[in-house]
């Protein structure tokens, strides 16, 4: 399992590839890899968004992510998990988060990945402040249910 908070922009596919190659224990064992990538949009709630700042609570954020991943691995037979989440100043089109889950069979990969992502959205202490094209800054008040 690996959980990373990144102050720098990152390439999610490269992170997944490097981690997969470095994990000797799961070589030959995994039949399914679920990769979720969250990326910054240039629009939200009817406004043009030109930038975003992501704040976190150093220490608690990592602790909560570890707890969430531990809950997923106790609920599904997961071989390995990688979570990378960006903080700091972000521009549209840059990745915010990648959650990769390796399992023997696809169902568990989908389910564990969904669980981690939804729990991250409600429990991991990150906060987004958007900078709108109109030069207004606004804090996001809550996350959506993911279907808008």
């Amino acid at each position, binding site marked *: 399992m690996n959980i990373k908070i990144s102050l720098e922009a990152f390439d999610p596919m490269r992170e997944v590839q490097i981690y997969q190659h470095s994990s000797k224990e799961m070589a030959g064992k995994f039949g399914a890899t679920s990769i979720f990538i*969250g990326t910054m949009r240039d629009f939200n709630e009817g406004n043009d968004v030109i930038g975003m700042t*992501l*704040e*976190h*609570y150093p*220490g*608690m954020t990592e*602790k*909560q992510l570890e707890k969430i991943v531990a809950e997923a691995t106790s609920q599904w037979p997961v071989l390995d998990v990688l979570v990378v*989440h960006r903080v700091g100043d972000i521009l549209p089109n840059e990745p*915010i*988060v990648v959650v990769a889950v390796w399992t023997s069979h696809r169902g568990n990969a989908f389910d564990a990945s969904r669980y981690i*992502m939804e729990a*991250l*959205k*409600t*429990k*991991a*202490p*990150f*906060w*987004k*402040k958007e900078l709108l094209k109109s030069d207004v800054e606004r*804090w*996001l*008040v*809550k*996350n959506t249910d993911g279907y808008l």
Partner: protein
Amino acid sequence: MSIRVRYFASLKESLGRSEDNLEIDGLATVNEIWRYANPDKALPDNCLAAVNMAYVNLIDTVKDGDEVAFFPPVTGG
């Protein structure tokens, strides 16, 4: 007892500070810690609280040396 209180995101901005260091006598709940630190401002309804980086209820008690944090609903991912 000594309690470090931390604030994050929009709550930090509206209070104009990121933390307080309190010295108080006797036991206190998380809710009371907020009132000691912010006697003139009610804790916003939807705010979350943590003690030593784990989520807690406002009626939970704190002990000497604890770090108490207050913050708005999280919006990561």
